[in-house]
């Protein structure tokens, strides 16, 4: 790497000032670009919370702002998971809510009263600006090149891989977590380089903040020990490593245990054992180094090394033993499924049912990172060329994050920072080489020899160019080649900006609450059925009417309709979700008692058949069946919902179980009446529906939204004269035979 970069302009102290001003301006512009590019959805639609999870965060934040911190800390929420309730204070990461609460009160103190909703909507764009700044600091620790930090900040500001989780309105934990992630890593590198307790303590404090904000803190807890472990294996142990790591671990672990949701996990779960193990290892290594310095004997050294290895092996065996005996909890399913990628699909359908937990396809990488993805390996390669402590970190981080992002789509988010950093390093290296006006001096013979040796081990492609530019021999002499390379790079960068803006505008800026479609003349048509239905619930049902729906909509019902729900997106109780799945997928006679037992008043289903909205409940239905089958294999069978030829059909050929399931009936109830006789069409499945629609006995239609997306049914009360609902309904319909038969039916004895 070029150690000293000649700055052609602005030499001397005035030059330094000017450069400082330029840097500041550029960083401010980057932050502004980062914020501005996230506002598409606010400008196009309105300032609302998107998606599902953010609705809960928003609701919790409102609670925090209204009731104060202490009430929030031990908040028992009786409006979710209806019969059970949820100990919210102990089951969430409070960092996000507390952050926006603090911002809210700070603005209030400055006499700028802003609605809490607007703070929640705009929190993610605000923090993305800070992320860009943190990336700048982080990259500056990595390389001496003055431009790499700014480039990395610019990449991080607009890379779609990060924008996808931080557009305005996406009030999710990741909004602040990525900033904290990058900043913690910056502090860690700083602590490692300086070797001071001060930076280590700050690193631990921000690590604690990160723990309070996002469950992905486990990534940090494993990455930093891994880095240290690799350093020790490389023989790069130094007192600085000891100071930085031990400070971080001692304070950081205590800090992480302050969060009620985390609790004793750092002691008791397998995910955190690597940090503890490396802590112990460092004590040993530190002690051995200390003794070794005092005793200059070779035999003693081998003895001591053998001692260390033995202790490590014993500790590892003890760890395995403790895990097997259950003192230390084994990997949780969510983490375990990262290693054994087929695990979730077989054993925990609820994890596999989330679309974000699928493996990533190749185009997604290019879509999310464009030119960064091919500069990324080059940057990692550059790190290998000059392997300091901090470059090892980049290598470790990129390998680990690349693997994880390949396993799970949503972990693309943790890959993005390192891609930005290492791509910026590669690119700035190129620019530093090609942007100097001065020509390099003529090579000497020794250098020619040297270069000849090197050229034999050259590799093809991009890295070859970078490597050869490193050799002083292969200097760039003509202005023409310089301008060609530089202008090509500039063109790539401009295309990158275009790509990012396009992706953000088209793919990542659509609120899922409001569906936008185009009219034939190109004008926009908004489909607002969700809020219509939730508003109906809010205004026309009693305050404590329990709503049963599939868990996807739990948070939104709680947030927008403000009604108690049975299950929601926090899938902590699998059995309860399976109960709802069973109620949805069984016959009415079976599901009615279930609904009565859980005091359900209304049932909400999402149906996209009229509009061609594919994310509806019929398409999710198989997951309900699978989750219910996991608990009651005798009563719900997935096989029964397929035809003999193994097809999943909703038309005439659908199986009896399918046609009689509550979900099917509620989705297609009265749907025939919209069409001329016999021509009912389901636009999602693309099939013609049977002539006669289903009949409902135990529930009655209460509300259907404009485009039939949301249908709400009211659960009927028990029959007044004690008949079951099926016969009561058929009596009402007048199905009773005209001829009254005198014959007595087989009655059973009345038992008092």
């Amino acid at each position: 790497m070029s150690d000293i970069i000649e700055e052609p302009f602005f030499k001397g102290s005035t030059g330094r000032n000017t450069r400082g001003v330029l840097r500041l301006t550029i960083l401010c512009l980057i932050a502004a670009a980062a914020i501005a590019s996230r506002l598409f959805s606010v400008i196009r639609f309105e300032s609302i919370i998107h998606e599902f999870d953010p609705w809960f965060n928003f609701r919790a934040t409102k609670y925090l702002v209204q009731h104060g911190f202490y009430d929030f800390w031990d908040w028992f929420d009786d409006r979710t998971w209806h019969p059970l309730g949820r100990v919210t204070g102990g089951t969430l990461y409070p960092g996000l809510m507390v952050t926006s609460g603090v911002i809210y009160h700070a603005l209030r103190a400055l006499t700028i009263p802003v609605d809490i909703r607007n703070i929640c909507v705009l929190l993610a764009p605000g923090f993305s600006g800070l992320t860009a700044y943190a990336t700048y600091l982080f990259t500056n620790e990595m390389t001496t090149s003055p431009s790499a930090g700014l480039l990395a900040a610019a990449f991080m500001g607009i890379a779609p891989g990060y924008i996808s989780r931080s557009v305005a309105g996406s009030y999710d934990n990741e909004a602040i977590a990525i900033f904290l992630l990058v900043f913690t890593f910056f502090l860690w590198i700083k602590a490692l380089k300086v070797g001071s307790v001060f930076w280590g303590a700050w690193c631990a404090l921000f690590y604690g903040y990160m723990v309070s904000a996002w469950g992905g803190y486990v990534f940090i807890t494993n990455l930093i020990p891994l880095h240290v472990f690799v350093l020790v294996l490389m023989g790069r142990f130094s007192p600085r490593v000891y100071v930085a790591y031990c400070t971080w671990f001692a304070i950081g672990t205590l800090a992480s245990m302050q969060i009620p949701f985390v609790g004793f996990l750092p002691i008791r779960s397998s995910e955190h054992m690597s940090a503890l193990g490396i802590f112990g290892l460092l004590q040993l290594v530190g002690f051995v180094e200390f003794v070794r310095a005092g005793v200059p004997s070779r035999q003693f050294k081998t003895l001591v090394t053998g001692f260390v290895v033995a202790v490590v092996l014993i500790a590892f065996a003890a760890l395995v033993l403790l895990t097997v005996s259950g003192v230390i909890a084994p990997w949780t399913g969510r983490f375990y499924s990262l290693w054994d990628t087929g695990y979730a699909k077989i054993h925990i359908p609820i994890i596999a049912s989330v679309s974000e937990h699928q493996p990533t396809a190749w185009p997604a990488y290019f879509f999310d990172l464009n030119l960064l993805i091919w500069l990324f390996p080059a940057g990692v390669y550059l790190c290998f060329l000059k392997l300091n402590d901090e470059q090892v970190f980049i290598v470790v981080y990129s390998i680990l994050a690349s693997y994880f992002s390949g396993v799970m789509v949503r972990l693309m988010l943790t890959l993005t920072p390192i891609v930005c950093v290492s791509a910026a390093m590669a690119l700035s290296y190129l620019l530093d080489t090609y942007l100097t006006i001065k020509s390099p001096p003529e090579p000497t013979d020794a250098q020619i020899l040297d270069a000849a040796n090197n050229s034999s081990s050259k590799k093809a492609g991009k890295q070859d160019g970078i490597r050869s530019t490193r050799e002083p021999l292969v200097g760039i002499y003509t202005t023409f080649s310089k301008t060609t390379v530089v202008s090509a790079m500039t063109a790539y960068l401009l295309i990158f900006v275009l790509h990012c803006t396009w992706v953000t505008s088209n793919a990542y800026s659509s609120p899922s609450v409001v569906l936008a479609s185009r009219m034939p003349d190109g004008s926009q048509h908004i489909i607002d059925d969700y809020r219509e239905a939730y508003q109906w619930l809010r205004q026309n049902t009693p305050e404590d009417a329990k709503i049963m729906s599939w868990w996807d909509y739990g948070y939104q019902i709680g947030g927008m309709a403000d009604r108690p729900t049975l299950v929601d997106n926090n899938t902590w109780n699998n059995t309860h979700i399976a109960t709802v799945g069973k109620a949805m997928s069984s016959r009415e006679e079976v599901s009615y008692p279930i609904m009565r037992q859980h005091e359900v008043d209304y049932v909400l289903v999402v149906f996209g058949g009229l509009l061609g909205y594919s994310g509806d409940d019929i398409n999710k239905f198989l997951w309900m069946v699978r989750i219910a089958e996991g608990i009651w294999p005798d009563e719900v069978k997935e096989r029964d919902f397929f035809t003999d030829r193994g097809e999943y059909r909703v038309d005439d050929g659908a199986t009896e179980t399918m046609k009689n399931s509550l979900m099917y009936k509620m989705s297609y109830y009265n749907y025939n009446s919209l069409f001329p006789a016999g021509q009912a069409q389901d636009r999602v499945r693309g099939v013609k529906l049977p002539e006669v629609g289903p009949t409902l006995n135990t529930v009655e239609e209460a509300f259907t939204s404009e485009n039939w997306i949301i249908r709400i049914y009211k659960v009927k009360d028990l029959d007044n004269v004690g008949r079951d609902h099926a016969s009561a309904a058929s009596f009402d319909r007048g199905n009773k035979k005209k001829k009254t038969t005198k014959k007595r039916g087989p009655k059973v004895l009345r038992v008092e």
Partner: protein
Amino acid sequence: IWQNYLDTTPQRTKLIDVFMAFLVVVGGLQFVYCVIAGNYPFNAFLSGFSATVGQFVLTASLRIQTNAENKADFGEVSPERAFADYVFGSLILHFFCVNFI
């Protein structure tokens, strides 16, 4: 080794070492008590124990940083700076311990 240690170590470092030994003893006692009497208020045990461990580690860091032999590794950290850092780290550590107990 022992004689070598007594001869070469400066007075101040010896003081630090005594403190570290004391911390080890306190931590060991706590651990033994925990093993004997059970760990019912587990957070109390943890905070007490990790206070000793953390303080031990921080003191070891201070010892390393102020050691004249390690001058090369810590270019930026003077002994005074190291002590101020030590105070800073210990304060945070104790805040978390008191909060956790």
